């Protein structure tokens, strides 16, 4: 049931992106409503700054508008593409900060906020779908061993290099690489029913 819903959602996303590629602003509005919250949350988590997160999300959606025609469903989901754009831009911003000698530690997340209360009370069908999916992903991530979870967390959200992650976790680089590999493979396996193979 969940798998079907998820595949339907991904197909809907791809179709919306196709319409966006043809200049359909209404489709773009729908795509915004489906993606904006997780993209904003990701940018805010990485940057630890809501204003900068809004700038990143704005820029990402402009890229989606302008590059929609370049999206290929065969290479992944539209959501995955949007998240990658958001993450990369957020990390670029973090590295700009680092060049300005700002403290990276302030922007590295302490945890993924699994236990935090939800503050959003929007109740659109898009949001419900996202929430259902989020519950599944959170459960999958929570089931990972703690050391794999923390390694993945830093790898995805911190913008740190491999070596910096190893230093942060006070573990040998080889150990950290292995933890990332095992964690990510487990996550893929756990979410595989949700993800298109």
């Amino acid at each position, binding site marked *: 049931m969940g798998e079907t819903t998820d595949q339907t959602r991904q197909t809907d996303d791809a179709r919306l992106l196709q319409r966006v590629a043809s200049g359909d602003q209404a489709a773009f509005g729908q795509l915004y*409503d489906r993606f*904006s919250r997780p993209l904003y949350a990701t940018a805010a988590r990485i940057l630890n700054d809501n204003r900068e997160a809004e700038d990143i999300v704005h820029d990402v959606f402009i890229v989606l508008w302008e590059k929609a025609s370049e999206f290929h469903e065969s290479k992944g989901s539209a959501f995955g593409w949007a998240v990658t754009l958001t993450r990369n831009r957020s990390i670029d911003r973090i590295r700009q900060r680092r060049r300005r000698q700002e403290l990276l530690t302030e922007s590295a997340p302490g945890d993924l906020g699994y236990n935090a209360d939800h503050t959003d009370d929007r109740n659109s069908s898009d949001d419900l779908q996202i929430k259902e999916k989020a519950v599944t992903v959170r459960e999958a991530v929570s089931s990972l061993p703690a050391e794999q979870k923390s390694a993945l967390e830093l790898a995805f959200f911190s913008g740190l290099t491999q070596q910096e992650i190893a230093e942060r976790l006070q573990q040998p680089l080889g150990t950290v690489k292995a933890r990332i590999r095992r964690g990510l493979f487990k996550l893929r396996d756990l979410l595989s029913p949700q993800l298109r193979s």
Partner: protein
Amino acid sequence: MIDERLEELASLYALDLIEGAERSAFEREIAADAELRKLVDALREASAQLALTVNAPTPSIELRNRVMASVANRAGRAQPPVPVALTSNVVRPSPLLWLGWAAAAVFAIAALWAGQRYSVNRNELAATQTMAEMEKAAAQTIRNQLEAERLIAIRQTDEFKRAQAEVGTLKQNLATERIQTARQLAELQGKNDLANFKISRLASLLGNSPDATAIAIWNPLTQEGVLTVDKLPALASNQDYQLWVIDPQYPAPVDGGVFAVDSATGVGRATFRPRQPVAQVTKFAVTRERKGGAAAAGEGQMILISQ
């Protein structure tokens, strides 16, 4: 078959954790291996789902308006942002349809204008804030540089003062050494001044060796002297000649040390240093003593004495 090394690289690549030559090499491997490409895509897709684990406030409606306005500008169409609530509503005909459309159009244009103004203002504000931050950082850098220069100046001043003190000490030492050197030079000059030397000729007291003679040269400053003897009789193997210095401050002659002579010619030369400080020499005397010399004068026969 994908080995563990490639799996690890695929994981790191999916999270953008490899760079440079390693990244380029791996991308070549991906390009040549469809299975590896598929794995990377799957891992990237899985990692993207982490975005759903983060809790954060919903982005503001202003952001939506700003994004939609930017897209409308790019599309070259003056269309308003598409409100969420309107996308699924069905508009029914009514007698006031035109009036409603007109109001909606006015509202939409106003909303678009407001959105654009907001976007422009926000961008200007962001640019201003960025400039302010950069200027603040530049000011801080200048402050840091000034502080560093101030500290360097303080340190250099301290070093200069210390160097000055060292130069003063060196000057003082140099002056002291100059005085000492001058004193030592004067002393040395005095030591070598022949006018201070006492030269005394010793004559024989022996009837069988009337030609025996000696010359003693005494330097009172160094308390040293040289004795040269000639034609002294040969000694037995258990005998030595001994020199005595007569100084009125002592009741007995002062021991000047023993010396030997060539048994064939009676010639000898010795440097002597009396065992006690000598203030004034009135006479020198040479006696023949047992081997090693006597502790006090009077034991042996007197051979020579100052004239």
